[in-house]
């Protein structure tokens, strides 16, 4: 028996050293599609949750290179799972893959690397970076101790590159792939924790005796390592590993949600949705140039409906996969806000059929999904992560978070409608007549009222949640203040309208400014780095946010100028012989 153990230990050692041995191999056969599929559907534990290996591979490659695929030395485009298999079984080839994104080539000078022929922002292979690694890690150690806000861009980039290289090396050492399930019938934390091959091997080295089931997993992994040069045999061994893993209760329990996650990423509903909204927007743009072509408008609405359906499908699938309400992370707020925005805009289109709301829906859908895509790429982390204890409550996520997010959505939609109004008014667009302006004004008022309901209810529900969790209803936390600012801005606009201080154009200008308030509450307060909601910080967001503030500020100034110009023109008309075209005098409106 002892001999058997030693043999197993040796086998595992061989399997773990397989990458090193494989490094001697100059070339390898490509992975078969079935191998890629089977490897991608293996279940792993990462970040406290179970997910398909393909998800781990995709986000790892995204973190390394800012993309989910790469082009190898032969010019062949390869996916994330292939890359991961290469890292595990053919690290020499993986080391040649240009997957390490460097945004500023000045970093290479810091690392004393000379790599001609590269652009300022380019991707490098591990092999290319290897001579600079000791310096990279030494400097990253120093710069990592600095406050992120105090780092220069090159220092920040250097720390980021060190993290990327470390992730690659951890993958290569098989530390981050926890695919060995816990034994059936266990209890406590161990019964929940999956092991990576590296940690399992460490346990073996310490003399711990694995269960018979885990021994079968080791044997299957060993067989895979031994047959990596024979694609068909490797494929069969991978199937055997699936069979062995299927014997664990933990795998059987998780397989439903993991398969659903595979389905979610495979159908790429968000990609289809983005495509639909983008085409819808282009169609809408042509429709404004050729208003007589009514089929363009109908196509725009149909494309928006398709995009919305795909987006809603994606949100529903995410809810089913994680058994959670639609919004629990910053990324999900983007999806949900976009979905609510386009649904409300399409509702407005159905209501008044002026083509304006459909165009706004197409633009909002396209913009929202671009932002979601951009944030996912920048953040490069699992978008369905485990939640900290206080957030892990479906009741409050379903009520407060959903309500406040709908409030954000309505505020941003109002800002968009207000901006359209202002730009059309300022530029005196011939296609937008008095009827369209009235319709826009009506829509704007409706959206503001709709948003106010959800903003107020969502904000108060947030306070009630805080009271339930921490014993205080209101703590003047930046995120709470942001929500309050939205409520205050919407109340001020509606009361200003009611009091006659803001007329139609004034409401539009104020709503456009309100977009900045929503953006500050949604993203801005998270970047302050204080309070309970200081999460989701990603470099690049600050500049995007500043651009949005600048853009909306420009719209507001344009709007104020247009109001002043039109008022002067109205006065001139009143002073002249033919009066009658002026706006009605200011006065209190009916409640």
């Amino acid at each position, binding site marked *: 028996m002892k001999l058997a153990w030693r043999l197993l230990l040796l086998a595992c050692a061989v399997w773990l050293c397989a990458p090193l041995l494989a490094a001697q191999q100059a070339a390898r056969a490509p992975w078969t599609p079935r191998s890629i599929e089977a490897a991608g559907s293996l279940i792993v534990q990462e970040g406290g949750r179970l997910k398909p290996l393909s998800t781990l591979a995709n986000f790892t490659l995204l973190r390394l290179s800012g993309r989910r695929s790469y082009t190898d030395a032969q010019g062949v485009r390869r996916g994330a799972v292939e890359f991961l298999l290469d890292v595990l079984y053919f690290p020499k080839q993986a080391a040649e893959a240009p997957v390490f994104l460097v945004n500023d080539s000045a970093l290479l000078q810091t690392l004393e690397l000379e790599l001609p022929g590269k652009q300022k922002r380019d991707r490098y292979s591990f092999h290319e970076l290897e001579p600079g690694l000791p310096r990279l890690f030494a400097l990253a150690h120093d710069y990592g101790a600095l406050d992120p806000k105090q780092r220069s861009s090159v220092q920040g980039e250097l720390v980021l590159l060190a993290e990327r290289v470390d992730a690659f090396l951890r993958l290569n050492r098989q530390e981050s792939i926890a695919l060995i399930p816990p034994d059936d019938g266990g209890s406590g*934390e161990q019964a929940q924790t999956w092991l990576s091959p590296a940690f399992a091997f460490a346990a073996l080295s310490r003399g711990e005796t694995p269960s018979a089931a885990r021994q079968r997993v080791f044997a299957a992994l060993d067989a895979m390592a031994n047959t990596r040069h024979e694609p068909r045999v490797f494929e069969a061994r991978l199937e055997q590993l699936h069979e062995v893993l299927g014997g664990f209760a933990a795998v059987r329990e998780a397989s439903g949600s993991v398969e659903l996650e595979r389905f979610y990423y495979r159908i790429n509903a968000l990609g289809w949705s983005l495509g639909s909204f983008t085409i819808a927007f282009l169609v809408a743009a042509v429709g404004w140039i050729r208003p007589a072509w009514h089929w363009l408008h109908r196509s725009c609405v149909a494309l928006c409906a398709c995009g919305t359906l795909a987006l809603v499908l994606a949100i529903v699938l995410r809810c089913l996969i994680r058994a959670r309400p639609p919004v629990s992370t910053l990324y999900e707020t983007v999806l949900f806000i976009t979905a609510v925005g386009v649904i409300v805009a399409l509702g407005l289109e159905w209501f*008044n059929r002026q083509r304006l709301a459909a165009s706004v829906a197409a633009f909002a859908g396209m913009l929202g999904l671009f932002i979601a895509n951009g944030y996912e790429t920048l953040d490069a982390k699992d978008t369905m992560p485990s939640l900290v204890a206080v957030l892990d*409550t479906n009741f409050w996520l379903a009520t407060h978070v959903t309500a406040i997010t709908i409030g954000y959505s309505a505020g941003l939609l109002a800002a968009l409608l207000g901006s359209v109004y202002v730009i059309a008014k300022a530029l005196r667009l011939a296609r937008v007549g008095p009827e369209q302006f009235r319709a826009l004004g009506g829509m704007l008022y409706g959206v503001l009222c709709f948003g106010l*309901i959800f903003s107020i209810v969502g904000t*108060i529900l947030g306070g*009630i949640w805080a009271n*339930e969790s921490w014993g*205080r209803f209101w703590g003047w936390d930046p995120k709470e203040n942001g929500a309050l*600012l939205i409520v205050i801005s919407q109340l001020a606009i509606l009361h200003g309208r009611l009091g006659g201080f803001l007329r139609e154009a004034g409401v539009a200008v104020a709503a456009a400014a309100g977009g900045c308030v929503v953006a500050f509450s949604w993203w801005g307060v998270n970047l302050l780095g*204080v309070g309970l909601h200081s999460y989701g910080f990603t470099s690049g967001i600050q500049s995007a946010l500043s651009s949005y503030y600048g853009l909306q500020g420009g719209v507001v100034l344009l709007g104020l100028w247009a109001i002043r110009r039109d008022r002067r023109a109205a006065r001139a008309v009143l002073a002249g012989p033919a009066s009658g075209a002026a706006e009605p005098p200011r006065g209190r409106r009916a409640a």
Partner: protein
Amino acid sequence: MHALWQRVASLAGSLGLSCSLLLLLGLLTWLGTLEQARSGLYEVQRKYFESFVLLHDLGPVSLPLPGANLVLSLLALNLIVGGMLRIAKRRSTVGVMIVHAGILLMLAAGFAKWRFSSDGQITLYEGQRAAHFEDPYRYELSIVEHRESGERLEYRVPQETLVPPRGAERVRLRGEGLPFVVEVAGYARNARVQRKGPRFEVAVPVLEGLFLQQLEPELAAERNIAGAYLKLLGTGSDEPPQAIVWGAQAQPWSFRSAGRSFSFDLRRERHAMPFAIELDDFAKLDHPGTALPASFTSDVTVHAAGSESALRISMNEPLRRDGLVVYQASWGPQGAGANARLFSTFAVVRNPADQWPLYSCIVITLGMLLHFGRKLRTALRLQAALR
């Protein structure tokens, strides 16, 4: 006179005032939010949101602004006069009045919380028990006479009394029954006790080789540790007894005078509870394979007069009893290893308006649904007629 009153009422209930106050509140909220990155939440809360006037620092100049207390009080007045009393009483305004009533209830809840609530924390290791909670932001000086009969006679001096008035350097405390006068000097909101080295001089007294080093207040005000010098006058000794009292001292300072024994303790302000809580078991569960907390649970025994009950307090599931609410707030020490002994921290709140925000939320929602539902119905009818 009547006309003047009419004008005042008209102004107090005007929409112009509503808009101005809302914009002012928005400005205060925005400035207070940005200021938190520099001054910390506690300071900002006191300066911007619990004040009547303030000076906002704009670099070379200071901008005087009304504090949130003043703005919210005026807003409540504006709401009552304009939104409840003077508003046209029609079917179309019923929803608006309901919303305004809900907002008034919310403002009343805020006022009740500000004026009548107290809150603090209890930190317990397993097996420990507490019948009081501590305010994390405020300190008090506790002077206890330990009588031979075992009786304890306690004098508690609140933080405000320990701080010398402007222009003064020290405070003298006299208590009925105390055989001495306590002089408090150099009270510091945040201080550390340091050993005096041979190579530097300090401007404060050095007692038994130690001195009190005054520090800048922390951004997170709960991290401040107060300290002060105490001197007992009138004890009859040539050299009045002196000591440093510090918030993080392990033991209170003890002093015997004429056969009577006293102890002096500068500690976080304590509030007695009508029951005691004993921590039986604390469990912190992480998401598997991570250090991300999935749940904290404290099994406690509540000891009240003549009764004991075992209960569980966990995140989002507090204990409500005798006007107090006890929440699972935190745990520690941070970064503790797998087998380290952990403590559980509870937040305790006594708030007479605990559930008022919930009631106001219901009232406001009903009012808004009524008002905006009515508006939507009118708009839909109008649109249908236009088609």
